[in-house]
């Protein structure tokens, strides 16, 4: 049994996941702090991850790419905002373009990791929040994306009709 609970809050676009591992806190921390271990769980089997930069101190950066079945690469980054090994880690997780630069068009997620050991069991709490700016952008997209492609098609039709 790993996952203890998952709470989803659609209003605030927040998700809290609690998991427990029968292992000491240092062992669970290493899943995050050792890039070779991070690679083994970050990407699904179909999209294994390769971690390039890996600096888990506050202000540090983690960069990675995932390789898909056709060899296509998806790049991502973390910006570490707080770190207190082996108990706490906070970072923003976002998408990157082909060169690895942050892609501001896709939503970034704030992730807060808390680890606590008790009687040889380590409890890991993960809290995900869509960043407010991105969250707003998402809201706009939810509304706007539905109509925008249609209005572009409409413009095309008008331009074609008047040509």
């Amino acid at each position, binding site marked *: 049994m*790993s*996952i203890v609970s*998952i709470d*989803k*809050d*659609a*209003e605030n*676009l927040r*998700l809290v*996941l609690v*998991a427990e*591992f*029968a*292992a000491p806190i240092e*062992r*669970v921390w290493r*899943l995050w702090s050792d890039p070779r*271990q991070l690679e*083994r*769980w*970050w990407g*699904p089997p179909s999209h294994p991850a390769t971690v390039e930069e890996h600096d888990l101190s506050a202000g540090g950066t983690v960069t990675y790419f995932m390789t898909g079945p056709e060899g296509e690469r998806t790049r991502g980054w973390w910006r570490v905002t707080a770190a207190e090994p082996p108990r706490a880690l906070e970072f923003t997780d976002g998408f990157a373009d082909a060169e690895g630069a942050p892609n501001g068009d896709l939503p970034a*997620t704030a992730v807060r990791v808390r680890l606590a050991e008790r009687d040889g069991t380590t409890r*890991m709490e*993960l809290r*995900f929040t*869509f960043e407010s700016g991105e*969250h*707003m952008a*998402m*809201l*706009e997209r*939810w*509304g*706007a994306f*539905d*109509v*925008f492609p*249609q*209005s572009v*098609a*409409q413009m095309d039709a008008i331009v074609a009709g008047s040509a």
Partner: protein
Amino acid sequence: MPADEDVDRLFHALSDTTRRDILHRCIAGEPSVSRLAEVYPMSFAAVQKHVAVLERAGLVTKERRGREQLVRTDGAAVERARRALDELEAAWRGRVERMAVLIAEMPG
């Protein structure tokens, strides 16, 4: 197919911070207009105007229940919010599972 003026109304509705915040509050909950009026430092009438702009843009609907007027987002937007969270959940269920496997394989 929406007319250009529908698109204008939509962008106008979303161009205001208070209206975006109202929309945000309506995603999962169904606040009443009077409840919203308590939240913002503005009059009931001013909040009502903001809600009307959102309503004209097709982003929310108002429903009278007793003495209250409830404000709701359209179901599709809520559905998309839920789907985004469901995707996040699915991704992390897989990750936690792989973490557990890794710990079992390399306990030390």
